[in-house]
């Protein structure tokens, strides 16, 4: 092999290659749609229209996106510390449990203004707590955090089934759900909040937790890039040797970052339990944890990218529902397929398109000498 490879400009790395990964995923998905006898272009049109075509669609899209932002941020924070938290499913689930418990205990006696900070604490606390054991095991025992968090996802599911069926079930109920919370325990819907000031939106599940999601984005951005702690966390993620040189204690950082990650994931419960369902039930966190990984990967672990990626996956979720209505042969599972493909291309094959870009840029630079040094 002669010489070196064509170095690619930075913006290609940040923007073009991730975009290429998404495009590849959609191309493959398009083939699958063709294979089952439908027109992918029509499907895309229905999808986009369903997600963004009217205020109802947008509302649903943003509601889904809220959860993705939480789990995406959670994964990203851990990634920056060099760790892989796959336990978002379980942490979101248990965070929701904590919120539900607080609300069940207090919705008759406490006003909303007291309940809200309590649920915030509970969501974060329970989520962090569920992440604590895997974090400790990784830091002090070297147990691989990927395996332990996967196990804890299943433990969370089993625990929740047990609790919902045996302990928290509403008396007289046929399905494993708790009783409905009182009005003080409802997180206001956005359409309810905006109505008094003259903006009338169709009712959707979109609620105030989206505000928390945005706030959390800003918080994570500040924490990681504008605080000494975030500096230390990122240093540890890049080089343990440099972190030790800089006076960081690696074990401490591992535990704090994973617990922080779990705490953020726990807020999915705020959206689902306090914002939409208004009761404790099963499987409210299903799928959000794993999609959070895709969101973090697509968003390059930066809050801004995560917001964009979350909205994209929100579009997929809402559009997918519309798609399932309009074209019966394409069910919601097609969205799952697309999610899987996006994770595959963005996460496992991220550099697949690189050689093509290098060839392209190499050719351009030869044809157009002025492009050298772009």
């Amino acid at each position, binding site marked *: 092999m002669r010489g070196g490879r064509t170095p690619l400009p930075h913006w290609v790395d940040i923007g073009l290659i991730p975009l290429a990964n998404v495009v590849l995923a959609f191309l493959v998905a398009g083939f*699958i749609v063709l*294979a*089952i*006898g439908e027109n992918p272009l029509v499907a895309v049109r229905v999808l986009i229209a369903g997600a963004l075509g009217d205020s109802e669609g947008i509302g649903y899209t943003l509601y889904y996106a809220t959860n993705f932002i939480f789990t995406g941020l959670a994964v990203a924070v851990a990634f920056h510390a060099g760790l*892989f938290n*796959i336990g978002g499913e379980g942490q979101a689930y248990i965070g929701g449990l904590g919120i539900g418990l607080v609300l069940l205990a207090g919705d008759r006696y406490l006003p909303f203004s007291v309940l809200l900070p309590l649920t915030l604490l509970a969501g974060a606390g329970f989520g962090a707590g569920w992440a604590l*054991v895997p974090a400790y*095991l990784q830091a002090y*025992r070297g*147990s*691989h955090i*990927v*395996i*332990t968090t*996967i*196990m*804890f996802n*299943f*433990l969370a599911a*089993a*625990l929740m*089934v*047990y609790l919902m*069926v*045996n302990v928290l079930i509403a008396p007289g109920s046929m399905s494993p759900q708790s009783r409905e919370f009182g009005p003080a325990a409802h997180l206001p819907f956005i359409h309810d909040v905006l109505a008094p000031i003259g903006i009338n939106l169709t009712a959707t599940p979109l609620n105030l937790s989206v505000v928390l999601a945005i706030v959390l984005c800003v918080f994570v951005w500040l924490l990681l890039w504008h605080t000494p702690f975030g500096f230390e966390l990122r240093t540890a993620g890049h080089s343990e040797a440099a972190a030790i040189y800089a006076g960081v204690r690696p074990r401490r950082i591992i535990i704090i970052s994973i617990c922080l990650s779990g705490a953020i994931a726990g807020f999915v419960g705020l959206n689902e339990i306090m914002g939409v369902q208004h009761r404790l039930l099963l499987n409210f966190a299903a799928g959000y944890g*794993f999609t959070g*990984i895709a969101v973090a*990967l697509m968003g390059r672990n930066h809050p801004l990218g995560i917001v964009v990626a979350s909205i994209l996956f929100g579009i997929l979720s809402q559009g997918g529902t519309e798609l399932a209505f309009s074209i019966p*042969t*394409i*069910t919601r*599972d*097609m*969205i*799952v*397929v*697309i*999610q*899987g*493909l996006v*994770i*595959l291309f963005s*996460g*496992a*094959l*991220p*550099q*697949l398109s690189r050689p093509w870009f290098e060839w392209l840029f190499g050719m351009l630079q030869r044809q157009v000498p002025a492009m050298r040094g772009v």
Partner: protein
Amino acid sequence: MVLTLSATLRVATPLILGAIAGLFSERSGIIDISLEGKMLASAFAAATVAALTDSAWVALGVGILIAGAFSLVHGYACVTQKGNQVVSGIALNILASGLTIVLGNAWFHRGGQTPNLSAKARFMALDLPGAVSLRDVPVVGPLYGEFISGHNLIVYAALLAVPLTQWVVNNTRFGLRLRAVGENPQAVDTAGISVAWLRYRAVLLGGLLTGTAGTYIAIAQNAGFSRDMTAGQGYIALAALIFGKWRPYPVLGACLMFGLLDAIAIRLQGVRVAGIGEVPVQFIQASPYLLTVILLAGFIGKAVAPKAAGVPYVKER
């Protein structure tokens, strides 16, 4: 009692096949979280082909092919592209979960289920020689007739796979190189052996085994495919692999133990255990995962993974 043991074997079969598949992969240094996805995909493929061809063997072949295809993708991402092995596994699981329903729905219009299969298209229970005639003999009869005999072919194949794997891993050239590449790929490379080809072979072997497991679930244990029918067995197989410390016989033991737990979970419902009260069924269902975490924490001995697992091999500069 005998029925419980018999059920244990049947439940443990896909776990054994999945765990051994994971064993080959991980001992070569490739983490494989996608056991679940491969099982699911091959289950769907086998059920579909069985419905179309009415032949269990052709279905098995296709099931293995499909799992092999998934393994190839995983291998390509991990070995050639040197991508993140965990993410690749997760991606394949999610992909399988969605794709099986999308295709199943499009082809059979039953909400993801495949048509029911006739006995011809399934692997049915086999009676070992003498099982029927011995049935009335006390103790030996039921034991032989219900527990040892009376399983379908794949169950026996899974049980055979364990000593076979033990032999391959410890007594063949391939096994030696496999173990080496999972501990120190550089040692293999400097000996002039291709690290990539070894790892591809390991992953493909895994595909063979998970394909068999998925086929078993769809057309032997059941009579067709239904949504997410693997129900986490791929993850339990992973847990069994770790619990068995990546060695064939301990892995078999772990699979049998987890299978037993599953088989008695239903039976234990409502039964009061002295001092503890009623044991919740969810606790028993969660016990494989709990035990694995306890093992990983180092409380029941040490679980030392193959040293190079999870790290893409790059020639040192």
